[in-house]
């Protein structure tokens, strides 16, 4: 029969005591999910439903939209929360179904790298977009 010590070691290998990481990531999922409901509905309404729908979206539309800081912030928040919410959920799915240590590390490393790359590229576009230099 497993002793209490065995159970401890199974749950806290190498004596590392549990951090608050799981709690924070769970909390983040709730808050980001709540914000995303409004951000995504707003995004859908503006880009796809009202004012002519997605057909009118072209370079000039984006240039006008990203003229000010507000819509850049809105789009960056949508990008960041959707990416982090999605990757946090995928991380949980990996915990559920990938049990071999090697495969789990590989899957999570791939996930984290992909999230970092997409977030970096997206942030770069939103921050550095300048219609004056691109228009010609």
């Amino acid at each position, binding site marked *: 029969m*497993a002793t209490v010590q065995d159970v401890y070691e199974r749950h806290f290998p190498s004596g590392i005591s549990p951090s608050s990481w799981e709690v924070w990531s769970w909390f983040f999922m709730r808050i980001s999910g709540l914000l995303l409901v409004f951000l995504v509905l707003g995004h859908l309404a503006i880009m796809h439903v009202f004012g002519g729908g997605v057909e009118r979206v072209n370079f000039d539309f984006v240039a006008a939209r990203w003229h000010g800081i507000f819509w850049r912030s809105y789009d960056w928040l949508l990008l960041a929360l959707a990416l982090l919410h999605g990757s946090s959920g995928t991380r*949980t799915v990996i*915990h559920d*179904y990938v*049990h071999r240590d090697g495969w789990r590390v590989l899957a999570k490393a791939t996930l984290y790298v992909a999230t970092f790359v997409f977030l970096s590229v997206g942030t770069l576009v939103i921050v550095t977009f300048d219609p004056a230099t691109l228009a010609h």
Partner: protein
Amino acid sequence: MKVQLKIQRFDPATQDKPVWGNYVAEVEDNGRVLDALHYVKWYLDGTLALRRSCGHGVCGSDAMVINGVNRLACKVLCKTLDQPVTVEPIRGLKVEKDLIVDMEPFFAGYRAVQPWLVPDDTDPGGRERLQSPEERARYDDTTKCILCAACTTSCPIFWGDDTYVGPAAIVNAHRFIFDSRDAGDRERLEILSAREGAFRCRTTFNCTEACPRGIKVTEAIQEVKRTILYRKV
């Protein structure tokens, strides 16, 4: 009355995969599924393996999947079920034979939450540690657990990963965390905030529906999560 039974039979020593065994049992009009299984074992096929002890819904030995849902065989009347009655072992644990599964991953999760009273440093002076009826009522629901594993083996998270401590373990942690006499809550909440702990719960409510004791399992898990959240965030 006659009861048609379709029982999942599996002997890993001689078979590669489970097969269905069909039987017709004779039970009294108020007979339970356990009576029908006894009839099969005693009169039709003595090789049928199942666990049961008290036979009255208290010991928690005979949880099984009856017509697709987790039930105690000793608490379900045959006349309430559609026939043929299918009987399978509880899911997510390795089948040892027929309806008997290896319960060790389930009990490992149970032991992990330290399911015993951790007293504080005060000396009660040789007397009992007193508690008001209100303090007792705070965790009354979770004292009803009989460790039958019906909840944990109905949990899709546990099916996918048996290192998750599971709903039954969290219910039993709840029973002590909210006990006014207990001083081990900090350590228990630390254990349940680990990766295999309470935050694996995805609130599917399977556990609450499966519990033969009517414990509000998901609510207990949510109370534990909330307590951890309030202390850490």
